[in-house]
């Protein structure tokens, strides 16, 4: 049993990688279309990024520089775990800097810094089917995509407006890709949707448990669904980041005490750190205590 654990570069065997690469190529050729693939059992649980991990493992080469984020941050536990996995099984260079990375695996966010040509953003996707909560059957939803029958989705969005006065979808907001397929952008906040449009980077989506891969090639139209009289709009925050003073970025709400104290800070930790390193300071950063500095180190 001692010779048990020997694994290939990036964990997956080459046959599996080839199968996944073929699925990726097909996905790139048909933007927004969900390509079934023979997802493997990975050594981390389904629902924890196995789709993204398989896509990353299949496209990763020894010279790549990998960044892994979860909720926009490099230091959340699952991001740490996935990054450590690739360091272990692929001995690959890792970074937290968006601009240095060739491959960025993400869960729930798109980095604030605009991605460039040559970069690949790999999304972890829990439920790839945008129509799933309107129609639970895969046999039906595949038919609806084939016939471009998206009326149900528009009715859902319309009902939101009729009931609430606005569309009540805040994340995993459906988009139409290159005028054809309605696609789930994964549970990123709708704040990030515009970043997908005509992005220079290749965007790959992996859903391990649901066994689907889809893609948005560089320079592809990605349009969030809306109505003429109710145009799509993104979240607005009242205050800038309390640490770096950034505006027009997505913020996390941090609870400070049990008396209703709150602060809002960048969800993208690399963006925030980079701004601070360049001398930007938010309201709360101006007076850091000795204690918090130590804790942050």
């Amino acid at each position, binding site marked *: 049993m001692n010779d*048990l654990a020997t694994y290939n570069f990036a964990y997956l065997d080459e046959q599996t990688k080839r199968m996944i690469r073929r699925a990726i190529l097909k996905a790139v050729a048909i933007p927004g279309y969900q390509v079934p693939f023979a997802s493997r059992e990975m050594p981390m649980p389904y629902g924890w990024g196995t789709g993204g991990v398989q896509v990353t493992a299949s496209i990763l080469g020894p010279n790549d520089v990998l960044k892994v984020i979860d909720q*926009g941050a490099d230091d959340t536990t699952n991001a740490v775990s996935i990054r450590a996995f690739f360091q272990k099984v692929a001995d690959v260079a890792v970074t937290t800097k968006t601009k240095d990375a060739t491959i960025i695996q993400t869960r729930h966010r798109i980095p604030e810094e605009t991605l460039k040509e040559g970069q690949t953003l790999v999304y972890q996707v829990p439920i790839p089917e945008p129509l799933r909560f309107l129609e639970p059957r895969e046999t039906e939803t595949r038919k609806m995509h084939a016939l471009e029958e998206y009326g149900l989705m528009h009715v859902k969005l319309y009902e939101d407006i009729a009931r609430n006065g606005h569309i009540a979808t805040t994340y995993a907001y459906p988009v139409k890709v290159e005028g054809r397929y309605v696609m789930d952008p994964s549970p990123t906040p709708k704040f990030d949707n515009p970043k997908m449009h005509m992005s220079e980077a290749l965007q790959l989506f992996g859903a391990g448990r649901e066994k689907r891969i889809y893609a948005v090639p560089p320079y592809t139209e990605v349009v969030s669904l809306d109505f003429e009289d109710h145009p799509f709009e993104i979240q607005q925050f009242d205050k800038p980041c309390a640490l770096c003073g950034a505006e027009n970025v997505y913020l996390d709400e941090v609870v400070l005490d049990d008396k209703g104290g709150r602060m809002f800070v960048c969800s993208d930790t690399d963006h925030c750190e980079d701004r601070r390193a360049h001398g930007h300071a938010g309201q709360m950063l101006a007076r850091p205590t000795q204690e918090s500095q130590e804790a942050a180190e």
Partner: protein
Amino acid sequence: MYVAVKGGEAAIANAHRLLADRRRGDRSLPSITIEQVVEQLGLAVDRVMAEASLYDPALAALAVRQARGDMIEAIFILRAYRTTLPRFGYSEPVDTATMKVERRVSATYKDLPGGQLLGPTFDYTHRLLDPSLIADEAVAEPAAKEPGEHVMRVSDILDGEGLIEGDGRMPEGHVMGDLTREPMEFPMARDLRLQALARGDEGFLLALAYSTQRGYGRTHPFVGEVRIGEVEVELDLPELGFAVSLGLIRVTECQMVNQFKGSAKQPPQFTRGYGLVFGQSERKAMSMSLVDRALRTDEFSEDIVAPAQDQEFVISHADNVQATGFVEHLKLPHYVDFQAELDLVRRMRREYEAARAGGEDGMKEAAE
């Protein structure tokens, strides 16, 4: 003051250290050996092998120990190992008619060729806690130790009379699928469905099987036969031109015999539900055969009226490794999405309060 949530790496390492400590438990007690797990917790090992789809008692025992006895965790560990193994080929179908049976019971015939053989069963034990196990008293040798009888299958008896449908056959030219190598698609053929059920969660299949008995997709079942024993696994080697034996595996097979009134296309006859599981697991094999029969609605022009008959529902949710991963992923951070929802609920709440205040003013004005 804001304290950045740093130190994920150290926290994870410390958590795993604590886990290893809890797994080992009191150091003054000897640790359990893999051999002990294989020998004394054999049914746990069997379940892990069955639902991990990997027949290797030692590795399954290691997984059970590593998982601190958590079955689904152990299944997960063994599956993640299995998936990395190269595929040499596909074995020939095992011939359960040649099984060396150590247990074989039929509920449809009082006596039959080969007889009823109870074997190592919990049936008819009185479920009283046994203090003799605490004292580790000596255990008597069994009356008959070696299994070894070949006995005819009950389904073959019925088959001789033409009263039961034939053994399951796929259409001409059908290439056998492999659930672990190809993406799932619905509708799914019976070969793939049986693969999914064989590695499906015992508890989930048990509950579904139970639901068919209580009227949610009733199939009028009888246990034609349950048999447990060793069968030979053979692999056809093209270089040699004949099949070679890879060894023996213990399996549990259940052939459920179900009443069928006939349809426009078929005469009245008995139909079958089939269950085959690694190791000794009657509960699983029986549940599997009930669910298999329930899922065969299209073959018998039956209406789908119950969950157990709905293949997309059953197959999509039978896998406990997938299910546990997705249920438990909810504990991962979701604060980006939650922030978006928080923002929306606050906004809607403001609108609600404003509308209500407006409404109250309106009421006052009307009252004045």
